[in-house]
């Protein structure tokens, strides 16, 4: 049974539907909205203030994490064209990035004439395989985000960059206190079971693997470690802008030759190949994914209709891709089946 307003399923223990059929995300949003004050809403002028504070004071004004998707590509576009900053673009490939995404990134950095670091590594491969082998309910994307945020902070420190720019949507933030806190608020009620499983996996398995002995145990630890060495503000232009996704997608298609990938989940997004496996496992273990949470927030912010979200979240990909990813991890279908 789905929430009447958004796309969250009744999937205890994290998601509850109340008597009106609304889930806890919607109920929380409703009460927050009833007490809404202007100072909880971000305005573009606030973004400009932050950017201006650091403009021209370092070799690079900001570090832009670009994955080749519409949100991060448009963030890079805005940073260069609208806010006229000098960014360093950065992409990390854990070995599962898709070619269409890389094509989009190359096009963007070439057109916008920005410096770009492309970092490819198999460092995370064993950890991902271990999740499957141990039948852990840890979310692959959570582990990946811990790793890439640590790497991002390190890069910012290395080049003395004061601002880290991401392409996160309003649905991927926890307004208003998200700035400098990184992406995933795994303490949010809707993520509690997932966070618990991820922490358990890190504690019981990852710490025992010599290769990962320094791997942070949580996003909080990443932020704490980063704060000791180098202060950087993390933000996404999309939190401050009212531009609808269709509009900025059209903009980068026209200006940067950006393309949608052939296959993706959710529809009209660009994600790595490992994402398909992560989604499959999240749906299996929890009945929803972090994309469901993101879109539910977008629905509550009136940036998307429920029907649109349901269309985008429909699982509609070739299962052969799952097999390919499993093979590259040295695994097979049997490893993700029950029993």
């Amino acid at each position, binding site marked *: 049974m789905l929430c009447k307003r958004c796309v969250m399923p009744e999937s205890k223990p994290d998601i509850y539907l109340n008597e009106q059929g609304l889930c806890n995300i919607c109920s929380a949003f409703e009460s927050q909205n009833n007490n809404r004050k*202007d100072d909880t809403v971000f*305005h573009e*002028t606030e973004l*400009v*203030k932050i950017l201006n504070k650091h403009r021209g004071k370092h070799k690079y004004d900001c570090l832009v994490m670009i994955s080749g998707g519409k949100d991060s590509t448009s963030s890079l576009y805005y940073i260069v064209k609208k*806010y006229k900053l000098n960014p360093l673009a950065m992409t990390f490939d854990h070995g599962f990035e898709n070619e269409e995404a890389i094509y989009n990134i190359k096009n963007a950095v070439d057109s916008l004439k920005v410096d770009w670091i492309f970092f490819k590594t198999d460092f995370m491969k064993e950890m991902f395989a271990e999740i499957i082998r141990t039948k852990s309910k840890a979310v692959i994307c959570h582990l990946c985000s811990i790793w890439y945020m640590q790497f991002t902070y390190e890069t910012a420190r290395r080049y003395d960059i004061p601002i880290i720019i991401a392409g996160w949507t309003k649905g991927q933030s926890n307004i208003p206190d998200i700035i400098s806190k990184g992406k995933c608020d795994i303490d949010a009620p809707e993520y509690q079971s997932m966070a618990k499983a991820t922490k358990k996996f890190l504690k019981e398995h990852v710490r025992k693997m010599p290769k990962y002995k320094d791997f942070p145990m949580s996003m909080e630890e990443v932020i704490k470690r980063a704060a000791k060495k180098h202060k950087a503000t993390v933000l996404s232009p999309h939190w401050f802008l009212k531009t609808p996704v269709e509009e900025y997608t059209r903009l980068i298609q026209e200006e940067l030759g950006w393309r949608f990938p052939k296959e993706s989940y959710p529809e009209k997004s660009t994600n790595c190949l490992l994402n398909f496996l992560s989604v499959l496992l999240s749906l299996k273990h929890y009945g929803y994914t972090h994309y469901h949470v993101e879109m539910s927030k977008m*629905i*509550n912010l*009136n*940036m998307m209709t429920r029907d649109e979200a349901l269309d985008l979240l429909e699982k509609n990909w070739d299962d052969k891709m799952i097999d390919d990813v499993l093979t590259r991890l040295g695994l097979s279908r049997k490893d993700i089946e029950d029993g």
Partner: protein
Amino acid sequence: MYILGISCYYHDSAATLVKDGKIIAAAQEERFNREKHSNVFPISAINYCLSKEGIIINDIDQIVFYERPFLKFHRVLKNLIGSFPRSFSAFMDLVPRYLGERLVLPSKIKNTLDYDGKVLYIPHHISHAASAFFTSGFEKANILTVDGIGEYASMMIGYGEKNRIKGDKILPYPGSVGLLYSAITTYLGFKANGGEGKVMALADFGEPVYLDFLEKIMDLKEDGSFTCFEKYFDFSSGNRMFRNSLEKEIGPSRRPDQKIERHHKDVAASLQAFTEKSVISIINNMIKKNGVKKLAVAGGVFLNCVLNRKILEDTEVEQIHIFPAAGDAGGSSGCALFAYYHLFGGEERYTIKTAALGPKYLKNSIVNLAINRNLIIKELSEEELIKDCAESISLGKICGWFQGNMEFGPRALGNRSILANPAADDIKEKLNRDVKHREWFRPYGVSVLDEKGSEIFEDYVTNSFMIMTDTVKKEKRKSIPGALHVNHSVRYQSVSSDDGKYYRLIKKFYEITNIPMVINTSFNVQEQIVCSPEDAFDTFMNSNIERLYIEDFVVLKQEGDTK
């Protein structure tokens, strides 16, 4: 070139974005923060203006403020000291506010917007004058601005030609048509800065029996100038702007809960007559001096649509242009336009065609909001929507109409409006009592097809911003009883094919009823006009508005609601 104009800290804070001499975005802060006549720094309006054009503050070439705060503070301080100790509470209220933010505006702008450039201050009445002349399209014209008070002046007589304006003469404080009107408004039991329209409506029920008295105590001169003597008035108080000596002369003031008597109507009529006499004398003198018969006007007093009609009737003015946001909100437009022409050498002039300069909202946000609130919403084609709405109005339903960009200025002009059938006898009472909860005597304006205006009105002129009244021809009066004021006049808005969907709606209504107009009142109930779909849904659901037509959708209050 982008110029951002700002007005704030008195009432009706607003921001205007001017691009190459044209206003491309403008909005009042009250519509966003939902505080009527809000006077705070207009951060939301500024954010809207920037986002409308997709620019950031770094792209702004110049920020301009609509008056000179130091000069104004000088006048305020002088008055407060002059009327000490009566002014003690006003002193304690105003002085910290001036010192806290008004006098340090550049640092407020720097801190809030991160704008590093200089801020220009344009005198209050020059801002009004620029808003009037530089949007008029007139090659040359006399300019008149009249309001409560600027820095030291309450009125300015000026002249504009090509890309230049100049002020020739001012009426100094305490002579002020605006403040006098506000003072008598408080005498009649209404609030200043809001209740003046009620007094104007009430005036048509009375006789100007106190006109001679007002002329005498104001020392009205032949050129229209006068003085408001402190013996009768106290402008430093916002609640009761008159003294006991005025009551001794013309009788006791009215309490807000007191019944409106003949005497109150006569006082209102006398005030209106005095206002008209003063302003008309000034205009006649202006024409006498230079023979120029085109007139551009602004300032809150020109929201008085009865006065505006009188100007056409009783002076030699051939063409008048009234800026749609004639009050202080429009000062934000004027100061930006003044900077463009006078400081940056702009040459090309333009005529303002629409007041729809505020935000518009996307279909998705409307649909999802309606779903979130479990509203009954149906999407219709434009033809279906217009037919449905026109039929609903013709059957006496009161309809909300929310379309496109919000209007700038106090009038709803078919974008954030409540519409009704002027043929219905009881529609005024129904609207006043059940929907708007207003005083019984207050009339409603209409939107009329421009091409039909002269068939309906005695002296019709195109009036796109609903800023003038006219008398309805005798033979037409029976057909629109719901729109007629007591003296058979109606405040009207001319609607032409340039107005798109709204024009087509009235045209359809005309096809159904043979009446080429609808009653049009602002989409609000005892609050500021709605801005967003959220505001519209709130007002619709908590009022007796029967149907809501919002962009491509009709929203019903109950399933199966049929006309």
